[in-house]
Structure formats: structure tokens, C-alpha cells
């Protein structure tokens, strides 16, 4: 791989934006995604490049988020890829076995690259992102109640 930073896909703003919305679509509950997508009207026509299929992915963790990586365990993953009639390709990888969730996430991924991107951002991504932020804040608040601060009394001197 050439060490040219400009060729690193992770530095491409378009790819970063896409990683961001794919993450939101994957983390949102499938039922919630279906609910917010109703505002978009009928689903656009699409054909499968890769119909939803299940697989296993080894998830890894780091103790305390900084330790050496270890294999935590395998999780089930559903992936699919589809193509809209205008040729735009959408991909989705989600945890679990919900093929409908994967299909909807891939549809949104495709639509977010096209002329309806702003509409999608407002009606789908924004509410899902707010849900995720709220859930994260709640979990943090719950965890905060049991926080223990360790400290050591300084002796002498």
C-alpha cells in the first residue's frame, strides 16, 4: 500500500460521512428504522447485488479500552447490497438476523448518495441519531450512579 495520505479512503470526507450514516443505520433498532422510513413514502424499486445473508464476525475488545486486543466472541451479522434503478449502490452490515433491517439500511445508504440526501438526513438520520445519543446519555447516567473514585491518602511530609 502506498503511504500517500491522500489515497487513504478514511480521509475522504464523503467516505467519512457515509461511514457515519451507515453506523447510525446499523445501530438503530430495526423497528425504529422502519417507523421513521414511513415518512419517505413507498420504497423505491431496487435489485439485489447481494441478497441479505447471515454470517459471523469476531468482535474484539480491549480491557479498559487501552489494553491489548482480545477476541471477545463471535456475533451474528447480516449484510446485503442493492442497486437502485438509477444505478446507485447501497450496502448494509447490521448485527443480528433482521433481513428487513438490513434491506432498509441499504436502501437509506443508497438514497443518501442521491438527490434525496437532505430529505433522508432530516427524516431518518437525525431522529435516529438523537435516539442513540439519548440512549447513550441514559446509560452513562446509570453507570455514573455507581462510580467509585479511588484515591490514596498521602502519608507524612
Amino acid at each position, binding site marked *: 500500500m502506498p503511504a500517500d495520505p491522500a489515497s487513504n479512503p478514511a480521509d475522504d470526507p464523503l467516505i467519512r460521512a457515509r461511514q457515519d450514516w451507515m453506523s447510525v443505520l446499523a445501530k438503530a433498532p430495526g423497528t425504529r428504522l422502519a417507523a421513521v422510513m414511513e415518512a419517505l413514502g413507498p420504497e423505491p424499486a431496487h*435489485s439485489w*447485488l*447481494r441478497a441479505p*445473508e447471515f454470517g459471523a464476525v469476531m468482535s474484539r475488545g480491549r480491557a479498559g479500552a487501552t489494553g491489548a486486543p482480545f477476541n471477545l466472541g463471535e456475533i451474528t451479522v447480516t449484510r446485503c*447490497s442493492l*442497486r437502485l434503478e438509477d*444505478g*446507485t*449502490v447501497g450496502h448494509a452490515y447490521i448485527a443480528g438476523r433482521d433481513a428487513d433491517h438490513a434491506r432498509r439500511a441499504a436502501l437509506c445508504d443508497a438514497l443518501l448518495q442521491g438527490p434525496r440526501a437532505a430529505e433522508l438526513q432530516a427524516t431518518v438520520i437525525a431522529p435516529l441519531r438523537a435516539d442513540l445519543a439519548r440512549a447513550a446519555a441514559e446509560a452513562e447516567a446509570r453507570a455514573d450512579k455507581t462510580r467509585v473514585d479511588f484515591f490514596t491518602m498521602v502519608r507524612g511530609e
Partner: protein
Amino acid sequence: MHATQSAQDLAPGFAQPPLDAAACFRAALQAMARPGTVHSAAPAGVPSGLSPAASALALTLLDHETPVWLAPSVATETVRTWLAFHTGAPVTPRREDANFAIGPWDEMAPLAEFAVGTPEYPDRSATLIVEVADLGTTHRLTGPGIEDTAHLTHPDPAFARANAALFPCGIDLFLTAGDRLAAIPRTTRVEG
């Protein structure tokens, strides 16, 4: 955006991957076991530049552990994108690293660079998927898997004789034309 442009060329693969790949594998197996017999295989989507039969063989035989060499006329962005998406096979520019090669016969040379295996591991050899206009019936085939004789057009009978002399090492060929495929393994003798 370049990525979107190549994604727009992306064709589907097998409509039902497990069933279609098993059917194509069966066709490939029969073709190799009975040299000269003609079988058919075609996926739902074919990238421009590859025949349906070669596409089906690629979907069935290639994965991330099988480096593939592409002839210059086949190695288009469309074909590379399609192979990467559906098979994950790494494309290698070096013939000696390739497990498989895809393309017309006259671009495969120098054939001596392809792996022929070793006496201990004759399976570590390259399999060439050769795109031809027509499978033909020019040459007489004899050998294992052929009860009497079979007929097929070999793109280069002199190569077939040299290849057979390497046994147990050697290169195996699939010939593809449209949605039809046949095979000439290293054990087959090609005459006239």
C-alpha cells in the same frame, strides 16, 4: 465521484448463491472429469468483458485465498470491481503467484511462468480459464475420463503435449465460450 462511477457498473452475481454455485461447481467437476464434454453455466449478472461461463466459474472457484491473474484485455475496472465485490479474490500482476488466470489464449503467454505444482504437491498449479470464440471439435482427445475419443478445439496442441509430459505436474484448462464451458486437464492427450 470515481467510486460511484465504478459502483454503477457493478453487476449482480448468482441469483441464489448457494444453489447456483453448487450447480456450477458440479458442471466444472463434470467438465474436468469427462474432458471434451460441454456444460453450461451463467450467473444472473455478468460484467462486460467476461463471458457468462467464465463469470460463473469465477464466482464458484475464486475466494480471498486464490490470487487470480487477469489478461490485459480482461483487467478492466469493471471486471476488477465485480471480482472484488463478489469473490474478494486478490488480482495479481505476477503469473507465478496466480492460482487462476482468466483471459484469451494469446494473452496468456508466457505460459511457462504459471505454476505447474511440485511432484509432492501437484495441486499447487494454476488453472487457466481461457475465453474462446467457439469450443469447436478440431482435435481428438484421449485419456482418463474419455471412454473412446472426444473432440474439442485446443488453442495450442503443442502446449498440450508439453504440458502432459510434466505429469503429475501441469496446468489445467477450462475453455469458455458464451455460457458454455469444457475442460482439458493435464492428463488429456490432444491429437491432430
